[in-house]
Structure formats: structure tokens, C-alpha cells
């Protein structure tokens, strides 16, 4: 079956531009997570959705970052007025369960480069 897909795979943005990153989770997966991975580091949690509800956005680094999942499936992470420090790989993960959703399935990521 299809895994988690993300698009675009690579995005180059000029500083100050807005970007939108898309995640298609595994069909039927209730939980959806976004992580940010800087070069040479492990992924860091950004935000979590249970169906369409955003239950945790404690990891979003600033109010320039916004995520949505309006119909409980596809999710979009939007970054406004991109800065160079936003350059990273953005990973989306989904999990079947609402609770104890430890085993998360990751997409390939979107590599964002801000110039």
C-alpha cells in the first residue's frame, strides 16, 4: 500500500517568500505529525493533528508557521515570510491510532532551502 507522501520534495524560496508544504498520510491514519530536521540533527516536533483537530502546536517556532488539516486527511504546513533559519527538511508522519501512537510512519520529507 501507499506510504506517507510529501510534496514538493525540494523547495527553494527567497527570503521573505511564503511556502506551502503538503503531506498525504496513510489512508485511515488518525494522527498526523510534522517535524523539522536541521542538518546533522534529529527531527524536532512541530505540531500534531488528531483527525482535523490540531491538538498540539507547541513546537511551532514562531507565528510565521501555520498548519492545517481541514478534512482530517491531507495536511499543509505553511511558512510565511521565510527566513534563512527555516532551511531544513520538513517531515510528516502519520499513525493509525489516536492514543499510544508511538509507531509513526514518516514521509520522505520536503527539503526547504531559503536563499
Amino acid at each position: 500500500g501507499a506510504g506517507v507522501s510529501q510534496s514538493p520534495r525540494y523547495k527553494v524560496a527567497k527570503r521573505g517568500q511564503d511556502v506551502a508544504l503538503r503531506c498525504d498520510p496513510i489512508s485511515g491514519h488518525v494522527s498526523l505529525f510534522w517535524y523539522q530536521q536541521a542538518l546533522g540533527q534529529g527531527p524536532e516536533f512541530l505540531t500534531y493533528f488528531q483527525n482535523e483537530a490540531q491538538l498540539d502546536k507547541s513546537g511551532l517556532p514562531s507565528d510565521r508557521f501555520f498548519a492545517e488539516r481541514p478534512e482530517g486527511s491531507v495536511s499543509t504546513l505553511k511558512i510565511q515570510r521565510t527566513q534563512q533559519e527555516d532551511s531544513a527538511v520538513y517531515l510528516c508522519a502519520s499513525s493509525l491510532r489516536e492514543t499510544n501512537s508511538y509507531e509513526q510512519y514518516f514521509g520522505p520529507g520536503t527539503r526547504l532551502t531559503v536563499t
Partner: protein
Amino acid sequence: DQQVKQNSPSLSVQEGRISILNCDYTNSMFDYFLWYKKYPAEGPTFLISISSIKDKNEDGRFTVFLNKSAKHLSLHIVPSQPGDSAVYFCAASAGGAGAQKLVFGQGTRLTINP
């Protein structure tokens, strides 16, 4: 503060020998631990996990050991194969209601030499 630490950025092991990857954590609220494997240009892939109520979990060539008193876990791969060459991430999660976000270490790059 880094709640999950992998102090070895890289490890090189001969094919057929045992690979041991280590991970330390500081948050005593963590109750579930996972290892993920990552190839270049791909997302992390779940490998094996362990609950804090256990001290060992085995799955084929992979065994994870948990020492709660030392706040330390390790992943053993035996025998090591060339296809095991990848970056390995240790991750931890705290319990409670709702979904559990993962806290990752920095990763260890494992190279298996033929």
C-alpha cells in the same frame, strides 16, 4: 536542552560482527522508546521499540535493551549486514492521554564494511 542524546555521531563495524548503538535520555517521564533507521533522501523507518516496563525486546537480528536506572538504551544488530549502513535515530515518548510526540536524538551513522 537535549533530552535524548546519541553521543557517537558515527560507528564503523565489520560485516558479520555485532553493531551496538547507544542512547541516553534525561527525562524520567519517557515511557516508550523507539529506534528508527534512515537512508539518504528517505524518511525515517521504524525499526524496533520498547516499553519502559520491559528491559529487552528482540526482533530478528535487532535487540533493544533498556536500563531505566541508568536512563540508557542500546540497539544491538547481529550479525551486521551491508544493508544496515544508515543513520540510526533513537527516539522517546512520554505517556499520557493523546498522541505521543517523539523526541529524537541526533543520530548515529552506522557503516558496515564488507
